[in-house]
């Protein structure tokens, strides 16, 4: 068996088995992922969920195997990616946070591997490096409209992780949505300075409740606190209303499916047809209309929200999808009023 393979390899290299133009179409693909934190964080959990969905769909008839490594930083991330690349089992390496320094050191050493860097803090490297981004500002705007309509104290809060650009854009458009329907709304903004820290999220949430907020956009995910304080909250990334129906009105959702398919197509074109990689230098994000983000359902709040508010939000959602309403991407660091 081994001999036969060696023979085939020798023949291929001599151009006797079809040459490069007729390279055999690949049937398998390995996707190795470096997570930002770990499966407990929604940013990573959504990727793990969507990569399984895409694997089941088997694009191009590919049998897709996946592997993930939890939050490794700096040089350790480079070592992890190099191990994935060296193993030969992973043709796509998806680095789910700011890893372009490390990818830069590896991309030319493994020119057939397609690297993906995701989110804030990356540099577009081009070539075999694809630069993916997630913008959730469109559904965040819709949540803001809900907040502006539903608040009684005219004070709405946001508990965010870090003031980084792909957090700021969500917060800014949330407030833009709230102000668009309720100009009196006062903003409360806090950052817990961690990507995942439920204890800190609870402290900051309680502080905002004490400051009068009766609706909080929970980017850091402390919904028990909302429940205990008997206030309404919004979630992001996953449908938090499924987990905490008593407190969560709605969530802004993300999907990595269009992103994954974009990358898999690029890899397949390269592997099957020899098309050179054309990694993007400027970040690529998939809009709400393209399926990159969406607004969740209202779950237990479905009959508690006034019908005219629901109609208003639906109309705005359609307008965003048809590009009649364009929500600007505002990256400024948000502050409390």
């Amino acid at each position, binding site marked *: 068996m081994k001999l036969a393979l060696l023979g085939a390899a020798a023949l291929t290299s001599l151009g006797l088995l079809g040459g490069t133009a007729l390279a055999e179409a690949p049937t398998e693909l390995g996707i190795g992922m470096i997570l930002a934190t770990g499966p407990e964080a929604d940013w990573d959990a959504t990727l793990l969920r969507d990569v399984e969905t895409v694997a089941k769909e088997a694009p191009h008839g590919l049998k897709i195997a996946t592997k993930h490594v939890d939050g490794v*930083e*700096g040089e350790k991330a480079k*070592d992890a990616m190099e*191990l994935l690349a060296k193993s030969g089992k992973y043709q796509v390496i998806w680095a789910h946070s700011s890893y372009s320094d490390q990818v830069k050191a590896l991309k030319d050493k493994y020119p057939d591997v397609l690297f993906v860097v995701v989110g804030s803090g990356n540099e577009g490297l081009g070539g075999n490096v694809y630069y993916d981004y997630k913008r959730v500002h469109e559904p965040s705007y819709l949540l803001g409209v809900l907040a502006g309509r539903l608040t009684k104290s005219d004070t709405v809060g946001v508990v965010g992780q870090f003031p*980084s650009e792909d957090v700021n854009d969500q917060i800014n458009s949330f407030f833009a949505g709230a102000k668009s329907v309720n100009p009196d709304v006062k903003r409360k903004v806090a*950052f817990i300075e961690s990507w995942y820290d439920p204890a800190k999220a609870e402290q900051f949430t309680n502080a905002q409740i004490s400051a009068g907020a009766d609706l909080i956009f929970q980017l850091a995910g402390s919904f028990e606190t909302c429940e205990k304080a008997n206030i309404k909250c919004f979630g992001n990334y996953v449908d938090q209303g499924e987990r905490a129906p008593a407190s969560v009105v709605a969530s802004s959702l993300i999907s990595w499916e269009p992103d994954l398919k974009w990358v898999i197509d690029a890899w397949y074109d390269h592997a099957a047809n020899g098309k050179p990689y054309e990694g993007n230098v400027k970040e690529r994000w998939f809009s709400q209309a393209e399926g990159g983000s969406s607004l969740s359902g209202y779950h237990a709040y479905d009959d508690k929200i006034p019908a005219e508010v629901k109609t208003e939000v639906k109309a705005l959602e359609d307008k965003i999808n048809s590009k009649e309403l364009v929500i600007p991407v505002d990256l400024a*660091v948000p502050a409390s009023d």
Partner: protein
Amino acid sequence: MIAFERRESAGWIAQAIAYLLAIAAGLLASVVLITITGADVADGLGALWQGAFGDAEAIGQSLAAAIPLVFTGLATVVAFRAGIWNIGQEGQVFAGAMAGYWMSLQLAGAPAIVAVPAVVLASVAGGAAVAALCAVLKTRFDVNEIISTMMLNYIIVYLLSYLLAGGPWIEAGSTAYHQTPLIADTFRLPELFGLHLGAPLALLATAAVALVIGRTPLGFELRGLGFNPVALRYKGVRVATTIVMAMAISGALSALAGVSEVFGINFRLRAEVLNGLGYTGIIVGMIGALNPWGTLVAALAFGAMANGALYMSVLTDVPSALVPAMQGILLLFVLGAAVLTRYRLRFGRKDGRHG
């Protein structure tokens, strides 16, 4: 009734055997865990070994991971031997990295021959200053150093967060993130045999701490401070000065961990690459029995374990959540062995009667 009794110090052979048994027991417990999850045990342990000591590259990575822990471990040794409970290594690592980075901004364009020493010195000064501040609070105002060092950790870590989150140190551009721009080549620690300057510095620091503690008047005072500060005062030693000295040295050592991570490996200042080095250093120093050479060995073991764990999580089906659990289990067993080499268990009633 079970009581702990202090032992006569166990010989080094007995200690080595105790630690080896602890590692074996920890691995055994880990094997049970891996088996429960259904992953392949041989694969898992093989990858652990491969990552720890498998080939030259892996050994290099293990050593690189050990370097900062040597510094923070030694920082613990110096403070704890003097009976000063400095748990501010974490903040002192950050302070060192930040002072070094600040210096690199002041000297932009300077040649490496000036730039590298200036960065190292600035960082050492930064770490020492922060630690000395807590020492002065202790000697002047009787502020407990556990509280002051712990609280200062938060202040320093959040100061960096402020500087990087839209503050003056953030990288400009459309994809800003909480990190500085890349550090220019001239400021990076030079490489020797595939390891950065931090490696020889770590060895040198170990030897220096061993020498100072074991063979100099200052070392005598430090140890005396740990044993009996009152007696030391009656001997005419200025205890306050000694406390400040001990803390400053401890802070300076921690700062070197920050320098080696930022200027030797990652070339950007960001919190994630510094997180935990200080706290881990406390454990490393304790496992090293507050002995400089023991701390060096403990740091090397920690580095090897960290790199082995990385290989295991990348190369095998061992669930990634199990890797930190395994590290924790190994650590518990090793700490248990450390206790048992210094104390013995005595069964029976305290007063010696049975029944």
